[in-house]
């Protein structure tokens, strides 16, 4: 085909390529977000695409930055507990845990055994809630809408158990330095057991719906591979890290609370693709359910709050405490100068580190894969932006 008059007005390079018979393509900037269905919040991905291929994708965060690290410096410890609960709104009680542990470490508080066991129960139930949420959001992003509702149905019983205890459904504000705010109400054990057993009983359905589904496999296997090396470099933890064979789990490596007393496995997979991340996520639900069941069997009786001074005032010092949040390692570096407010808390949130690795694995993928990868990166924007 010859070059028409109209073609001649195109850029020289394109004209040349047309003349040579090569098809010229042009890159296009695609702004994914800050308002986009796949970004679970205000997260923006500045994607440079060539056809359907992502040449580059730069995650842009900060739309939800609330300055937690500054806010906590203005509040006393009791107030902070309720504040950090809101960082990762899907795992509120797990956010409170490292803070409580950090204060207890500095103040050398003893936590009564009952409180420790109840903390484990609540934290693991919260993990199930969180994982079920991502189970549904991932499948919804891949276009399967039904798992959403199954997951929410399962969540409801556990959610109700959490509400019985804490009075809240997302922001629990229940851990206190030295123990818990109050003891759990009667009927909680039964409700919690009912919830977790139901989840376990229904997991085969989930596997049939997604894991065994050929379309799902096509969409996830070997898509968005995150290498083990990169995972270490970016500090990727949680189900995403473990999906890349970063077999780290604070609960096992440096047991806090009473995690060393339960029989459970750290789930990990080695391919580092979307499928493995999802696999780990789904199987961690089972492990958490196992822990909850064992913990409920064995909760000791006794008080739930140790001897705690009326005004929480951490002595001078600094400590880094990390916990296994549902999404990865949540660490708090607490610096105290002896005031009733912390001098500084550096909050190391899992989603933040995890999302920072996104750019590397998004390069060269397809637009549709980008969605699968975003979905399999299980992040909460509040946790990224803090």
């Amino acid at each position, binding site marked *: 085909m010859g070059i028409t008059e109209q073609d001649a007005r195109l850029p020289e390079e394109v004209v040349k390529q047309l003349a040579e018979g090569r098809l010229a393509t042009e890159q296009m900037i695609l702004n994914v977000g800050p308002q986009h269905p796949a970004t679970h919040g205000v997260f923006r991905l500045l994607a440079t695409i060539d056809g359907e291929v992502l040449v580059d994708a730069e995650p842009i965060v900060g739309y939800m930055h609330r300055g937690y690290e500054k806010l906590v410096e203005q*509040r006393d410890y*009791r*107030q902070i507990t*309720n*504040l950090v609960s809101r960082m990762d709104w899907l795992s509120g009680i797990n956010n409170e845990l490292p803070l409580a542990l950090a204060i207890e470490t500095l103040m050398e508080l*003893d936590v009564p*055994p*009952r409180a420790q066991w109840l903390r484990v129960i609540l934290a693991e139930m919260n993990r199930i809630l969180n994982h079920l949420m991502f189970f549904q959001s991932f499948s919804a992003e891949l276009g399967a809408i039904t798992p959403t509702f*199954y997951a929410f149905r399962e969540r*409801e019983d556990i959610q*109700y158990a959490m*509400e019985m*205890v*804490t*009075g*809240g459904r997302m*922001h629990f*504000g229940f851990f*206190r330095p030295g*123990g818990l*705010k*109050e*003891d*759990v*109400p*009667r*009927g*909680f*054990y*039964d409700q919690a*057991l009912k919830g977790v057993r139901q989840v376990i009983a229904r997991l085969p*359905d989930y596997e*049939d*719906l*997604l*894991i*065994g*589904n*050929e379309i*799902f*496999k096509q969409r996830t296997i070997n898509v968005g591979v995150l290498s083990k090396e990169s995972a270490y470099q970016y500090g990727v933890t949680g189900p995403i890290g473990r999906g890349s064979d970063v077999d780290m789990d604070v609960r096992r490596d440096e047991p806090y609370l009473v995690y060393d007393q339960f029989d459970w*496995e750290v789930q990990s*997979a080695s*391919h580092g693709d979307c*499928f493995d991340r999802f*696999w780990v996520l789904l199987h961690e639900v089972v492990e958490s359910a196992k822990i909850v069941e064992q913990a*409920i*069997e*064995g*909760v*000791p*009786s*006794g*008080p*739930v*709050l*140790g*001897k*705690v001074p*009326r005004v929480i005032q951490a002595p001078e010092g600094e400590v880094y405490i990390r916990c296994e949040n549902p999404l990865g390692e949540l660490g708090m570096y607490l610096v105290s100068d002896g005031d009733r407010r912390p001098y500084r808390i550096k909050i190391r949130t899992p989603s933040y580190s995890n999302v920072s690795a996104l750019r590397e694995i998004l390069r060269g993928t397809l637009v549709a894969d980008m969605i699968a990868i975003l979905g399999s990166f299980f992040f909460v924007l509040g946790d990224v932006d803090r």
Partner: protein
Amino acid sequence: MVMTDQKQRLEEARKPGFGFGLLKGMAVLLKHLFKRTTTIQYPDEKQDLSPRTRGVIALKEENCTVCMLCARECPDWCIYIDSHKETLPPKREGGRQRKRNVLDRFAIDYALCMYCGICVEVCPYDALFWSREFEYAEYDIRELTHEKERLSDWMESVLPPPPLEIGADVPDEPTPAAAQTTTAAAGARPATQTSSATAARPAQAAAAPKAPTAAPTPARPKESEPGVAAERGAVAKAESPPEASAAQPAPVDQAPATTPVEEREGAPPKEVTEEAAKEAGIGDVQAATTQVPNVEVPHEAPRPVALEPVEDPEAVYQQVLDDQRRKGSSPQVAEARAKVARVKAERGIRRGPTPVEVDKPVPSAPTKAEQAGAPVEPTPSGAPKAEEPAPEQGPVAARPEEAAAAPQEAGAAHPETTEVSPSSGEGAEDPEAIYERVLAEERAKGSSEPVATARAKAARMRAMKGTKGPGS
């Protein structure tokens, strides 16, 4: 090897399929098509929310002493309080003039509120409560600032706190080791000095060192896992020392009272509790261990309590009813409480001073431990009866026998609370004396000056009004 097993399953799952996975998925959906749905048709049906649900903060205006603690602790600065001072003439000839704060405005800006509940937690006079109400949306954000009238309306929907789960305990109970070490010293103290909350503790403290996991309440609800319950019961039986049960008839008279609904209703049926208790042979221990206040609110000086002799169920009914009405409980609540009291009287259950028969002696801490009132067991050993006119003994009237019976258990009483607890016989005290005493106590405890004064004032005011506690 579990690990390899796991890996194998993963590899298995990653193998490409031949379309059967698709059919399986469709089967799951078809299965669900024929199941009953779990939907709750919201505006028509409503979920029964937990009593602890943090829906909205309700204000019991009478209880507010304008101490400003809530506003000061609020992380969001969303509580606005205005007040003025009012001078009252002395109650008695020659007495001092009294000043008190009058609440002019109490508003919470729910557009700012983060529902953390710190205000409810810190309120020393039980003026703030969580209500389950959540339908108070407004079209304009400015209208979300609710004044005290609206906040007071919500008191209607406040539920009493639920009873606690098996094995629950007082938060500040000494650890086993501490209990042992303090035994000797505390044992010497007359039991009458222990506060109401402490009263429940001895047996537990005694049991604790041996069997921290033991002594769950046998009153586990029926629907509970039979296996677990049985197991627990067995453990408890095996491990709890017999003295413990003997020593612990202790009706804990911490008195919730502020909550408008009879606390006891939340408790499991008494029969169940009794039976189970007999079976386990540790009934009283249980009772004591399951319900106890578990809040870190400072201990407050208990108020003198008048224990009226009550024999006839109808009389009990009337008396409680009047009492409740006078206190301003809503009619239903009053009636419910009165009925409960009557039923108890009919069954011949003799309890220690409970929130119904006797009003709450302790204004703060125990009130949040309402469950306490609940499954406390009738004591065969002739433990304190509500009817016993024992005003001088205050809340702890129940204790002497046990103290005698098991001095070492009594000794385990919490040292802290022991110090703080009021001496008995304050019923006869003059309001001014109460004021001074409470003030001194608060200072000794290390409460800040405003708090101490406020508490002292509150105590005096209550003494003057003849009410039994702020929760009334």
